[in-house]
C-alpha cells in the first residue's frame, strides 16, 4: 500500500509527466489556432462536413480552450507543479539552510575547486586574520577535532528561484480562476448623449447585468489620418452615481475608464441611422448649445429665437461624408437655406448676430466592460515568474571553506569551494579569493 502511494506520488512529481504535459498542451493548443474558434455550428458543417462537425461538437472544439479536456490538461499541469514543488521543497530548503560547518571534512577537501597552502603561523592566528579580512565572504568558524573550519556562502536563497517560477504559474492560474468566478466580460453600446445603466455579458443569451451607477457618453469621435485610416476612437464618458457626476474621462483604445472595479474599454462604434449632433454658437455673445436631432424634425433654441431643420441629404462623398440641407430661421422671419457638410464649420450671418454652425452624424460608442478581480494575482504571478527566472538562471549559491590544521612549523590551509551553477563565474570568484589570501602578508601563505 505504502509503495503504491509512493508510486502515484512519484508519478505526479516526475519531470517525465511535466515534459509529457508540455508536449500535449503545446500540441493540443495548435488545434485551436488552426480550427477557427467560436463560430456557429453551421460554419463547421460547411467547412468540415457534418460528420467532423459532430465530432467537434462532442469534443467542444469550437471553444476548445474552455473544453473539459483542455481544462483537465491544465489541471494535470497544476497538480504536477504542486506535487513536484512539495516533493522537492524539503530538499531545496535543506540546501538553503544547511550548516556548512557541519559538513564532512573529507567532502570539503574534495570540492570542485580547492587549493592548499602552508603558513608559518599557527592555525588560530591564521583564522583570526582571515576573519578580519575585508571581503564579500563572511566566514563562520567552528572547531573540528582540534582543527579550525571556516565557512562562508553567497546567495543560498537563490536556490528558491526555481520554486518561485513554479509557484508563479500557480499564482497566475489562481488569478485566472478568481477572474472567471468573480469577474465578467461584456459590452454596451451608448448613444452620444445617452447613458447606460446595464451592460450585456458575452454569453449565449447576452444576459444583462445591472450597474449600480450610470455611464453617460457625451461625445464620440472617430479621427482619421489624411490617408483615411483610423487615427483614434475617442469617447467622453461621465460616471453618474447617486445622481452626482462623479467622474469624467475621455477614453481611447489604450486608455480605459475605471470605476468601482469595472473597466470600460473603447472597443467599437456604430453610426446612428440619420441622427445628428448640431453645435451652434452665437459669435457675439459666445453663447452656445448642442442639439441632437434627426432629419425632418425641427429644433428650436428659444433663448436665441432660432429654429432649424434638416430637410434634405446628398452623398455620400469621400469617406462616407454627407451634405445636409438646412432650413435656418430666426425672429427676423427671413429663413435661409444652405448645404452643410458633416464636420465642417459654417458661419451663418443673420441680422441680429452671426452664428458658428456645425453638424455631424451621431454615433453609438461601443464599450467593452470587464470586471476582473483576479488580474492583480496574474500580474503578481508574472512578476514572480520573471524575477524567479532571473534568479534561477543567473544567480548561484556559492560556498567556500577554509580548513586550518596545525602542522610542525605553522599550519596548513585548505581552501575549497563549490557553486551550484555558473562554474565560470565561480572560478573567477574563487580565484579572486585565493589571490586575496595570498597577497595578505599577515597570513604568510605559500602555495603547496
Amino acid at each position, binding site marked *: 500500500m505504502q509503495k503504491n502511494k509512493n508510486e502515484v506520488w512519484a508519478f505526479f512529481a516526475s*519531470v517525465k509527466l511535466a515534459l509529457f504535459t*508540455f508536449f500535449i*498542451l503545446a500540441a493540443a*493548443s495548435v488545434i*485551436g489556432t488552426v480550427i477557427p474558434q467560436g463560430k456557429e455550428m453551421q460554419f463547421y458543417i460547411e467547412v468540415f462536413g457534418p460528420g467532423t462537425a459532430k465530432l467537434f461538437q462532442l469534443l467542444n472544439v469550437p471553444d476548445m480552450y474552455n473544453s473539459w479536456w483542455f481544462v483537465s490538461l491544465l489541471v494535470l499541469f497544476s497538480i504536477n507543479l504542486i506535487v513536484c514543488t512539495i516533493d522537492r521543497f524539503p530538499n531545496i530548503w535543506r540546501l538553503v539552510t544547511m550548516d556548512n560547518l557541519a559538513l564532512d571534512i573529507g567532502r570539503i577537501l574534495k570540492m570542485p575547486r580547492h587549493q592548499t597552502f602552508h603558513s608559518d603561523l599557527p592555525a588560530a592566528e591564521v583564522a583570526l586574520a582571515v576573519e578580519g579580512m575585508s571581503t564579500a565572504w563572511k566566514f563562520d568558524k567552528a572547531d573540528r577535532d582540534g582543527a579550525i573550519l571556516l565557512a562562508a556562502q553567497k546567495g543560498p536563497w537563490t536556490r528558491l528561484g526555481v520554486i518561485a517560477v513554479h509557484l508563479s504559474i500557480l499564482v497566475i492560474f489562481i488569478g485566472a480562476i478568481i477572474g472567471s468566478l468573480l469577474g465578467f466580460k461584456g459590452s454596451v453600446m451608448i448613444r452620444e448623449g445617452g447613458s447606460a445603466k446595464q451592460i450585456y455579458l458575452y454569453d449565449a443569451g447576452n444576459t444583462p447585468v445591472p450597474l449600480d451607477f450610470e455611464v453617460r457618453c457625451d461625445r464620440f469621435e472617430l479621427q482619421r*489620418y489624411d490617408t483615411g485610416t483610423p487615427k483614434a476612437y475617442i469617447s467622453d464618458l461621465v460616471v453618474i452615481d447617486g445622481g452626482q457626476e462623479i467622474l469624467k474621462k475621455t477614453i*481611447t483604445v489604450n486608455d480605459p475608464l475605471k470605476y468601482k472595479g469595472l473597466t470600460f*474599454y473603447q472597443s467599437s462604434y456604430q453610426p446612428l441611422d440619420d441622427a445628428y449632433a448640431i453645435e451652434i454658437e452665437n459669435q457675439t455673445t459666445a453663447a452656445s448649445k448642442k442639439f441632437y436631432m434627426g432629419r425632418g424634425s425641427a429644433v428650436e433654441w428659444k433663448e436665441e429665437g432660432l429654429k432649424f431643420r434638416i430637410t434634405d441629404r446628398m452623398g455620400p462623398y469621400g469617406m462616407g461624408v454627407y451634405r445636409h440641407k438646412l432650413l435656418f430661421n430666426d425672429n427676423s422671419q427671413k429663413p435661409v437655406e444652405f448645404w452643410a457638410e458633416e464636420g465642417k464649420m459654417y458661419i451663418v450671418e443673420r441680422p441680429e448676430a452671426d452664428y458658428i454652425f456645425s453638424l455631424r452624424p451621431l454615433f453609438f460608442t461601443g464599450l467593452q466592460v470587464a470586471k476582473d478581480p483576479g488580474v492583480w494575482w496574474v500580474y503578481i504571478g508574472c512578476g514572480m515568474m*520573471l524575477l524567479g527566472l532571473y534568479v534561477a538562471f543567473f544567480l548561484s549559491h556559492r560556498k567556500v571553506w577554509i580548513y586550518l590544521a596545525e602542522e610542525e612549523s605553522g599550519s596548513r590551509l585548505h581552501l575549497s569551494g563549490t557553486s551550484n551553477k555558473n562554474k565560470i563565474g565561480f572560478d573567477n570568484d574563487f580565484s579572486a579569493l585565493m589571490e586575496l589570501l595570498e597577497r595578505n602578508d599577515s597570513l604568510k601563505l605559500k602555495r603547496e
Partner: protein
Amino acid sequence: MNSSQLLGFATFAYLAASILYIGIFVFRAKKLGVAAALLLTLGFLFNTGGIILRWVESYQQGIGHAPMSNMYESLIFFAWCIAIFYLFLEFKFKNRLIGAFAVPFAFLSMALASLKDPDITPLVPALQSNWLIAHVVTCFVGYAAFAVAAGMGIMYLVRSASLEGGKEKNPAGLLATLPGLKMIDDITHKTIVFGFLWLSGGIITGAIWANSAWGTYWSWDPKETWSLITWFVYAGALHARFTKGWGGKRIAWLAIIGFVAVMFTYYGVNYLLSGLHSYGGG
C-alpha cells in the same frame, strides 16, 4: 540620406559579413576574422542609424512612432537584435567560427524586409501605447537569442556528424576548426536560457498590454497561443537538460525545433492564421 538607404547599406554589410564568416569557417581563413567583425559592426551601425532615422522621419511626417509597428520594421529590428546578440557572444566567447551560423540570420532578416512595403504608416489606435516598445523589444531580444541558438544547434549537428564520420583523423580537416562540441553545447544552452527569460517577458508585456487595451490579458488568439507553444518547447528543453542531463544532439535538435516554432509565431501566424496581430502583416 534617408533610412532606406542606410538600411540598404546595412543589408549589404551583413551579406558581406556573412560571406566572410562562412569563409572563415570553410577555408579556415582566420585572417578574415577582423574584416568580418568590422563589416558586421559596420552593418550594425548602419542598421542602428537606419532605425533611428526612420524614427525621426516618422516624426517629420507628423505620424511619429517607434519603428516597430509592422512586418518591415520588425524584420529590421530582428536583424539588429541578432547582430548585437551575436557581437556580444563573439566578444564573450572570443570565437569567430560561430559567426557562420549566426550572422546569415541577420542578413536573411534584412533581405526579407526588403521584400516588404517600406512606407512609414501611421499607428492604428490599438498600437498607440507605451507597451508597444516594451513588448516588441522583449520579444525580439528573445527571438534573436533563439535564432543564434538554432545556428549553434546546426553547428553542433554538423560538427558531431563529421566526428562520427571519422573525418577528423586529419587534424587539418575543415570542421576541426570549429569549437569543441562541449563549448557549442554550452553556448546553445546559455543562449536558450537567455532567450527563454526574454520570451517570457515578451508574453507578459503582451498580456499586460492586451489587458490595458481590451480588458483581457489572454484570449487564445493564434499569436498568443503560438507564443505559448514556443514557450512550452523551450521549457521542455530546459527541464530535459536540468533534470535529465540532456545535451548534445538532443538539445541541438530542440534548439532548431524551438526556432521553427518561433518563426511560425513571428511570421507564419501573420500570413496563415488570423487574429489580433493581423496588422503585423503586410
